């Protein structure tokens, strides 16, 4: 036997890898879109549980510093997961689904996208393993201090930012691949339909804006490992150049679904397709011009604060046009089909967007912002947005997605439909109460991110906690039937004898 024969492996690595990726990697656009949205729902459950637990801590207005590491770790996990992974995953999943469903556009780089997906998740685990207590804003210099981390010590605290960098780099790459593959595989000519137009535009926005975050994370890493000076104001401005656009990734992608499907449930065409298409330019451009409105109480020159005040109002006008367009579509319809759970989800998403958006109009105003900056008013506003347009809007799309993929294998039973409908309404109603309790408390001066607070705010905290738990039950009612469809599909894939219906 030659030396070559003696070292030959019993199997070929290339073939083995192909078998593994073939078995465990998604190989369809629909499947990959579900990979991202389903992972988003899992991360949502994780961060939601963290919130429900830290809300219990807040039932005591006299907490001492002893509880602070637990509280701030849970709070940071909540914020990191929401903004750094959940939001981009939902955006990408919606973008892939929109292009597949409406235009037959396809991904082609499945193996690469799957690898990047898992790396993105791994990056988040590395980031959180250090027990960061930065809150999601990672404000410097707080985010650079060792005392801000529970488990990483010394130079290892940079691992949190390296982990986040890995996550964001992978997400940016997937977003770019999605748009690139989609455009390459487009078969139809003429205007792209409205849902993929919006969804892919805001998937592309990930590529435009996430590099700013990556630059911030790299700067922090160099600050920790190489003692490079990190200017707090410049670093924070750089952070917000991603930090504001990120809040629009999902809402504006969901706008596309609302424009496409609300007319169907209203039984008439969209009031103005032209508004919807013109508006896209305004939303895309101005999203990236408003970021410093998060720093209106910082020592910034007056001209910057004036600029972002005005540009935010212009962006708000764009959102207002969307509300007017969809509102008129529903108002001028003979009836709206609430019996379809997707129709209900989209309607609640739109209604929630209006309810959450109106109180926010004071926030970009330089004159009024100081009354509520860093109070629960802001927390209530953005959470109302998240609970409605982001989560309920995404749920409508995810239900559509799951029915498309699994509907023949596991169609939703009457019990499932009732459960999802009850869950949508319980989630919406409960979180409306939480959001308004937050805004009322914030207006009266309840500061965010505190573990001890004036006792007069205790009734507000109790209301928030009770209704948040009710909303959590609503999530279970929605998510269990949806995930049961995935479960049945998995069973069918791995066990013989289970057939499609």
């Amino acid at each position, binding site marked *: 036997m030659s030396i070559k024969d003696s070292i030959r492996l019993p199997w070929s690595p290339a073939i083995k890898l192909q078998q593994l990726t073939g078995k465990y990697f998604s190989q369809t656009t629909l499947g990959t879109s579900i990979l991202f949205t389903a992972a988003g729902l899992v991360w949502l459950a994780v961060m939601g549980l963290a919130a429900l637990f830290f809300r219990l801590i807040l039932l005591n207005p006299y907490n001492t*510093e002893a509880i602070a590491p637990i509280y701030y770790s849970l709070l940071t996990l909540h914020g990191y997961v929401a903004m750094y992974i959940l939001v981009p995953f939902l955006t990408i999943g919606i973008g892939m689904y929109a292009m597949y469903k409406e235009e037959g556009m396809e991904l082609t780089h499945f193996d690469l996208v799957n690898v990047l997906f898992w790396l993105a998740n791994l990056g988040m685990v590395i980031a959180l393993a250090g027990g960061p207590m930065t809150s999601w804003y990672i404000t410097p210099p*707080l985010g650079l201090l060792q*005392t801000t981390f529970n488990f990483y010590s010394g130079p290892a605290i940079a691992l949190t930012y390296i982990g986040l960098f890995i996550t964001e780099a992978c997400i940016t790459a997937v977003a770019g691949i999605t748009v690139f593959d989609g455009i390459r595989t487009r078969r139809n000519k003429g205007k792209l339909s409205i849902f993929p137009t919006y969804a892919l535009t805001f998937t592309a926005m990930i590529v435009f804006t996430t590099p700013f975050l990556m630059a911030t994370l790299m700067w922090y890493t160099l600050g920790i490992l190489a003692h490079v000076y990190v200017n*707090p*104001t410049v670093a924070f401005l750089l952070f917000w150049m991603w930090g504001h656009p990120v809040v629009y990734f999902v809402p504006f992608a969901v706008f596309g679904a609302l424009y496409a499907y609300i007319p169907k449930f209203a039984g008439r065409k969209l009031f103005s397709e032209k508004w919807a298409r013109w508006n896209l330019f305004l939303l895309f451009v101005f999203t990236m011009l408003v970021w410093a409105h998060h720093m209106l109480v*910082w*020592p910034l020159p007056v001209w910057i604060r*004036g600029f972002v005040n*005005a540009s935010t109002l212009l962006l708000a006008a764009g959102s207002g046009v969307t509300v007017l367009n969809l509102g008129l579509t529903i108002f001028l319809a003979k009836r709206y089909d609430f019996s379809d759970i997707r129709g209900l989800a989209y309607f609640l998403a739109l209604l929630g967007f209006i309810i959450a958006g109106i109180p926010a109009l004071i926030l970009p105003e330089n004159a009024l912002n100081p009354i509520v900056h860093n109070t629960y008013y802001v927390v209530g506003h953005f959470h109302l947005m998240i609970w409605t347009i982001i989560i309920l809007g995404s749920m409508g799309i995810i239900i559509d997605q799951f029915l498309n993929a699994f509907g023949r294998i596991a169609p939703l039973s009457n019990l499932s439909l009732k459960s999802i409908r009850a869950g949508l309404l319980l989630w919406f109603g409960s979180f409306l109460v939480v959001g308004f309790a937050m805004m009322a408390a914030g207006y009266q*001066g309840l500061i965010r991110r505190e573990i001890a607070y004036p006792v007069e705010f205790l009734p507000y905290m109790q209301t928030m906690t009770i209704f948040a738990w009710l909303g959590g039950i609503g999530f279970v009612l929605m998510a269990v039937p949806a995930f049961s469809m995935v479960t049945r599909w998995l069973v069918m894939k791995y066990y013989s004898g289970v057939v499609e219906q």
Partner: protein
Amino acid sequence: MMGMGAASWIKKHGELTWFLVLLVLVGIFATWSLEEVVSGTSTNYRFGLPLASGVPRPLPNGTLVVNITAYQWGYTPDVIVAKPGQPVLVVLHSRDVVHGFLLKLPSGTVNVDIVPGTLSYVFFYAPNTPGNYTWRCSEYCGIGHSFMNGTVEVI
């Protein structure tokens, strides 16, 4: 006749009309807001302005000037003693991380962030009603964030 023409023009160009209406409304709102920003005429903006852009020059006679340092987790000094109606200028500095200064007064709210390396300024008139008015840190600054506060004593 001209009215009928205008009405039918608006009906035909509905979308453009609404865009123009919105543009005008936003223009008015934004211009008003910009004018406030530049002149500092609104109540709260005058009362809490980083970079000293709203501090009156020259300072009114009898202004109490207080230099405060914020740190993890407290303020030095953490008490300001003022007479009713007395003008107060607070110059804020941080020696470690970003802190906040949120003070709710009967006449308005003061809310500024204190960024290491830059001074922040707060100018207000002490309330006419004697009493204690508490300020708190509004910017998350670590595990002691909830316990950072100070008092304006008006006597």
